[in-house]
C-alpha cells in the first residue's frame, strides 16, 4: 500500500507541475512578450468604439486586467471546480465545449484502440511464432512502416478513393446522418454514423497497431531465449503450448501498459484524422484553440488531458497486480 500512496503522490505532484507550467505558458509567457491575447480578437473598430476601449472591455470580461497573482488563484480555483470560463474563440463555456467533443473522440478512439490491440496481439503472436523467417520479417516491416506513415497523407488518399471515387462511405458527417436533408434518428442514425466513422477508425487502427505489435514480438522473442522457456523446451513441452501458455501471456503485459498510455494520449492525438474527416473532436478543438491563443480553452484542455493521462496511469498501476500476479504492492 505504501508503494501505491507514493505513486499517487508522485503523480499528483506531476499534475501540479503541469498546472503551473500551463499557467506560465498561457498567462506569464504572453505577459513577458507583451502580448495581449485579447488583441487577437478585436477588430480595428466596432460600432464606433475605438480598439483600446474594446480591448479593455474584453479584458474586464475575461479577467485579464487583474494582476497575475490574482489570476493564478482564480486559475487554480477554475481547475478545481471545473468552471473553466468562456472560450474566446467559440464564445461558449469551455466545459460544455469539451463535454460535447469528448464522446465524439471517444467514439473514434476506443473502437480503434480495441481493434488495433487485437490486431497487434494477433500479428505479434504470428511474428513471434515465426521469428526470423520471412513471414516475421514482412510482418515486422509493415508494422514499422506504420510508425512513419503521415496520418494526414494516408487519410487524404483513403478519403479520396473510398469516399469520393468509389462512394462506399459518406464523405462528411452531415452527409452521413441525414437522408434527403432530413436528420436521421434512432438506429438509422447510429448505423450511418458508424458507417461514416468506419474509415477513420480503421485508419487509426492501422496507423497505431505497429508499436504494440513490435513490443509484443520483441518481448516474446526475448522470453523465448529466457531460462524458463529453455527449461520448458527441455521438458519436451509442445512449442505451441509454450508460446501460448507461457511466452505470450508474459509478453502481453507491456502491451497493456502501452494501451493505457495510448488511451491517455490518443484523445488529443487524432488531430489529423479529425481534420481530414472533418470530425468535430477534441483534437481539432485543441488545435483551433492553439492557433487562436484561446487561453481559457487551452488551459482547460491541457489540464483535462494531463488529468486524464494521470488518472489512466493510476488506474493502470492499480490494475497491474490483477493482470500480472508477480506484481504486488506490499
Amino acid at each position, binding site marked *: 500500500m505504501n508503494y501505491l500512496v507514493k505513486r499517487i503522490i508522485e503523480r499528483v505532484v506531476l499534475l501540479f507541475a503541469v498546472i503551473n507550467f500551463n499557467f506560465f505558458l498561457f498567462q506569464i509567457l504572453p505577459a513577458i512578450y507583451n502580448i495581449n491575447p485579447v488583441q487577437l480578437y478585436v477588430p480595428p473598430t466596432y460600432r464606433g468604439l475605438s480598439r483600446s476601449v474594446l480591448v479593455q472591455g474584453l479584458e474586464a470580461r475575461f479577467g485579464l486586467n487583474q494582476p497575475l497573482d490574482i489570476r493564478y488563484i482564480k486559475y487554480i480555483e477554475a481547475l478545481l471546480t471545473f468552471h473553466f470560463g468562456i472560450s474566446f474563440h467559440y464564445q461558449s463555456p469551455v466545459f460544455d465545449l469539451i463535454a460535447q467533443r469528448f464522446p465524439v473522440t471517444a467514439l473514434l478512439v476506443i473502437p480503434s484502440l480495441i481493434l488495433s490491440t487485437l490486431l497487434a496481439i494477433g500479428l505479434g503472436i504470428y511474428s513471434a511464432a515465426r521469428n526470423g523467417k520471412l513471414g516475421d520479417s514482412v510482418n515486422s516491416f509493415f508494422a514499422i512502416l506504420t510508425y*512513419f506513415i*503521415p496520418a*494526414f497523407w494516408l487519410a487524404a488518399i483513403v478519403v479520396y478513393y473510398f469516399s469520393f471515387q468509389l462512394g462506399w462511405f459518406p464523405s462528411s458527417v452531415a452527409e452521413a446522418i441525414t437522408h434527403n436533408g432530413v436528420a436521421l434518428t434512432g438506429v438509422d442514425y447510429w448505423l450511418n454514423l458508424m458507417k461514416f466513422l468506419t474509415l477513420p477508425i480503421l485508419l487509426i487502427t492501422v496507423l497505431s497497431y505497429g508499436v504494440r505489435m513490435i513490443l509484443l514480438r520483441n518481448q516474446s522473442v526475448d522470453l523465448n531465449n529466457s531460462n524458463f522457456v529453455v527449461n520448458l523446451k527441455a521438458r519436451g513441452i509442445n512449442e505451441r503450448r509454450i508460446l501460448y501458455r507461457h511466452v505470450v501471456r508474459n509478453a502481453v503485459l507491456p502491451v497493456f501498459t502501452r494501451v493505457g498510455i495510448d488511451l491517455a494520449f490518443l484523445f488529443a492525438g487524432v488531430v489529423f484524422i479529425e481534420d481530414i474527416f472533418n470530425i468535430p473532436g477534441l483534437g481539432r478543438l485543441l*488545435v483551433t484553440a492553439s492557433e487562436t491563443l484561446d487561453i481559457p480553452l*487551452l488551459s482547460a484542455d491541457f489540464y483535462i488531458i494531463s488529468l486524464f493521462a494521470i488518472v489512466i496511469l493510476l488506474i493502470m498501476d492499480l490494475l497491474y497486480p490483477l493482470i500480472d500476479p508477480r506484481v504486488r504492492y506490499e
Partner: protein
Amino acid sequence: MNKTLRDLLERKSFIASLVILVFFAVIAVAAPILTPYSNPYLPSQARVAAPYAVPGWATIFPQYRGLAPNQNFVLSIYNVSGGEVKELNSSWMQVSVPASGTTNVTFPIKWGYKPPYSFAFSFNISPPKEYYVLNVVLWHGNKSFWLYSITPQDYAIPPQVGVPNKPSTVYISSILLSASNSPYVSTLSPTQQALSGVYLPTYTFSAPGVYNLTLSFNNEGNTPISFAISKPTFSDKGYAYGRLGTDNNGASVFAEFILGARFDLFIGVVASAMIIAIGLILGMLAGYIGGKLDLSLNGFTDFFLLLPGLPLLITLETILVVSGAITKISLATVIVILIALLSWPGTMKIIRSQTLSLRTRTFVESSKALGAGNFRIMMRHILPNLAGILFAQLAYDVPGVILAESGLDFLGLGIRSFPTWGNMLGFATNAASSANSFAWWWVLPPGLGIVILSLGFFYFGTALLDVLSPYRLRGE
C-alpha cells in the same frame, strides 16, 4: 572498426537503408543542379506548364495518352507562294515581296497531341521602311485563324513593330492574344473573348494533325520590298510535364520534391542533433550522478512526456510569432528549435537507462577506485560507450522531427512560402478536396518520401545499435 564495418555491411537492412539515405542525400546536395528552380512557390517560377500537368512518362497510360508535352522548336521547313525567299544563314531569311503583291510563307507544324495549355510563336523581324501589313494566320484543313497582324511603326492600327531595318522580336502567345490585338479573338463571343487564353489553344490545335503557320507579307506600296526575318520558333506549354508533373499553380512538382527533401533532411538532422545534445546532457547526468538529481531530472522528463506535443508546439509558435520575437530569426529556425525543445524526453530516457547500466560496470568502478573524477569518468568512459546509441538515436529521431514539421506545415502553421514535404501534402490535399481533383503525382511523392526516408533512418539506426553497442545493450 574494420570488423564493425564488415558487421554492418553484412546486414541487408543496413545496405538498403544506406542506399535510401545516400539517394536522398545526393538529391538534397544536388538540388540546385537537378532543378533550375529555387522556390517553385514564387509566382515567377510557377506556370512552367499547365496546372495539374501529369508527369511526362505518365502519357503511356491510356487516360493520359496524347497529352501535349512542353515543346520548343524552330520551324525550318517552309514553302513559299507569290514571292521569293532567300536563306541568309541557317536562321535568317530574306522575303522579297513584289509591288502591291503578297508573299505567303507557310511553315507546317506537325502536332501529334491533344490541345496544349498555351502556345506561342516568336520570330525576329527587320521590316522595310515602306508600308506593309504582315498577317499571321494559323490554318488546318479549311479552318483558319487570323491570329495577329503586324504593321509599320507609324501605322494607325496597333500593333506596330520596330524601327525599319532594325531587328525586333515578335512574340505571339495564346495567353497574350486578346480582342484588341487579335482579329480572330475579336470574332469570338464576349465570354470566349474574356477567356481567349483558355479557348484559343483548344480551337487552334484541336486534334493531332498538320497545322500551318502562314506569314502573309502584304506590300502596300508600289515598289518591291524585302523583309529579313528569322525562322519562327514554336513553343507550347502542355498537360504533361517533366518527371513529376505540376501542381495547381503549374509549378514543377519535381523541383518542390527535391527542394523539400533538401529542407526536410536538413532540419531533421539539425533538430535531432539538438535533441541528442539535450538528451545526452540530461540523461547522462541523471543516470550517472543519480540520487536526488536523477529523481528531479527524471520527473522533469516525465512532466514533458505528459504534455500534448503538437498543441504545445502550436501554442508556443503562436505566442512567439505574435510577439515579434520572430523578426530576428526565421520561422524555420524557430520551428526547429521548438521541435527539438519538445522532443528530447524519449531520447533522454534511453540515454539515462544506458548510463545507469554502464555506471555499474567494472571499468567504471576501477576507474573510480583509481581516483578519477566524475567528469573524467563521464567523458572518458561513459560517453565513448554511449556513442553507438547516440548515433542510432540520432537516426531514430530524424523521422519524428520530419513528421512533426510536416504535420505543422500540413495544418498551415509552419513554413508557408517554401516547398517542404508537409507543405506539398497540405496544399495537395486541400486542392484535392476543394477541386475534387486528385493529383497522384503531387500527393504521392512527398508522402512516400517521408515514409521511405524515415524507414531508411530507422533501419540505419537499428543496424548501428546492433553493431556498435559494446555490450549488446539492446534487449538486455
